């Protein structure tokens, strides 16, 4: 992926996170906890489980529709990061080839099932992570992390990272464009040039940090970065969490999907 498209992607996701929908208004702590529980439940499924994963697609679908997140955007990003998981998983059908079921005359191997399981889990977990940030602004996530016990120093510098992420990406883009305008083919993109460019970027970064520090001092900074508490957990938030937990428990420990299938079979016998 080119720098420009990466920058555009992260910018788009960032902008989406500041929209105002029911999902966006939920407390960040609740959303983080719900996402973690969801992820945990999904990966706790056994290696060959495929069918029971189906109901879990409700979670991303609800977030996408209620949160008004473009579905194709999420799908594209999921596809983008799939190579590693696919690469590892693709060996499963090859190495675990014992037939375990025959479906409409087609033999299905155990390895194929585990591969399918990996793929489904992958789509669910990756979309859940993306949708977390798409529906919760990054400062919101940081606030949640702090309240959930992450060290204050870690969160403080994480917020600075976020604040200057786009600024630095723009600086990097300028540096790249300047380089591209003066290189022909691959000349100019060698490692030596790269080292110089990064060095220049580093100098600017350190100088900027100095100026930021002066600006902080000028407004009375004395060592602690003050944050005003802004989020409150409401009954709606708790209801959302409760419903999520109930859903996760039901669909993890009871074979609902199969049950539905059997009922359908009975109906059509």
């Amino acid at each position, binding site marked *: 992926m080119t720098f420009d498209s990466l920058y555009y992607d992260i910018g788009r996701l960032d902008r989406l996170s500041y929209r105002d929908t029911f999902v966006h208004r939920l407390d960040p702590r609740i959303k983080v906890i719900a996402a973690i529980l969801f992820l945990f439940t999904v990966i706790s499924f056994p290696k060959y489980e495929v069918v029971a994963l189906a109901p879990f697609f409700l979670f991303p679908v609800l977030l996408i529709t209620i949160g008004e997140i473009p579905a194709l955007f999420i799908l594209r990003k999921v596809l983008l990061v799939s190579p590693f998981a696919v690469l590892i998983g693709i060996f499963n059908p090859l190495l675990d080839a014992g037939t375990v079921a025959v479906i409409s005359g087609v033999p299905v191997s155990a390895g194929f099932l585990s591969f399918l399981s990996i793929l489904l889990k992958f789509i669910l977990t990756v979309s859940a992570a993306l949708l977390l940030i798409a529906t919760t602004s990054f400062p919101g996530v940081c606030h949640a992390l702090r309240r959930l016990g992450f060290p204050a120093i870690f969160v403080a510098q994480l917020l600075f990272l976020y604040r200057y*992420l786009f600024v630095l990406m723009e600086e990097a883009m300028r540096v790249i464009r300047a380089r591209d305008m003066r290189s022909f083919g691959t000349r100019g993109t060698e490692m030596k040039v790269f080292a110089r460019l990064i060095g220049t970027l580093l100098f600017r970064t350190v100088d900027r940090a100095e100026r930021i520090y002066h600006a902080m001092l000028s407004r009375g900074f004395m060592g602690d970065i003050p944050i005003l508490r802004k989020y409150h957990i409401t009954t709606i938030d708790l209801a959302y969490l409760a419903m999520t937990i109930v859903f996760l428990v039901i669909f993890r420990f009871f074979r609902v999907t199969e049950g539905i299938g059997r009922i359908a079979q009975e109906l059509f016998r």
Partner: protein
Amino acid sequence: MSHHIIEFRNVSFRYPDGTEALRNIDFRITHGESVGVIGANGAGKSTLIQHMNGCLMPTSGSVTIGDLLLTRKTRREIRRKVGVVFQNPDDQLFMPTVFDDVAFGPLNLGMDETRVRERVHEALSTVHGLDLCDKPPHHLSAGQKRAVSIASVMAMEPDILAMDEPAANLDPRSRRLLIALLKTFSHSKIIASHDLDMILDVCERCIVLRDGRVVADGRSAEILTDERLLEENSLELPLTLQTRRWREDTE
């Protein structure tokens, strides 16, 4: 009414790499004055502004703000009185949201939550930026960033306002709004800028710097119409004054 007098007495400053940025600077600014600081690039304008609140300390000479002599110990107290708006708003807006940035100063002053919210509200309304409250700074335009950076300083209710190139990178409308805003402030104002038209509009007094020295200090109306003085210092007449002449030339 307290005496917020700014006094630079024989101030010199040398950067660690040896550059002598200020040489024997002497001036006195009284309460409520609006002073423009002009000069070529490298004349020492930014360095001067940074001495206003102790970001830089003079290598020799003294800076007095009100009753306080600028030392490492008094810096903190002085920073309550002098609000500095830096050249690059991206450096000044370092918090995740606009609200956090404007609240930073008051929170550091030890105010309680209600008063902080009041101050933030006031400061943002002054710069017409209330609707920007929950946005992250990187979603703002240059003009909006400038407005918010001013608000973040105003929220501390300083007695003295020092600004380094406030109109840089602003589109004409934002610049117009800035000028209008500055004219409503009754604080002592020190504004370093290349925008001579803005200085003419906002500041009744003008200090000219060259190679770290004060070469002229007087009424803006006199200095900014003195073409020879300006050109000697690598400047020129404010554009508003020039167009008049251009029109005269072409008629």
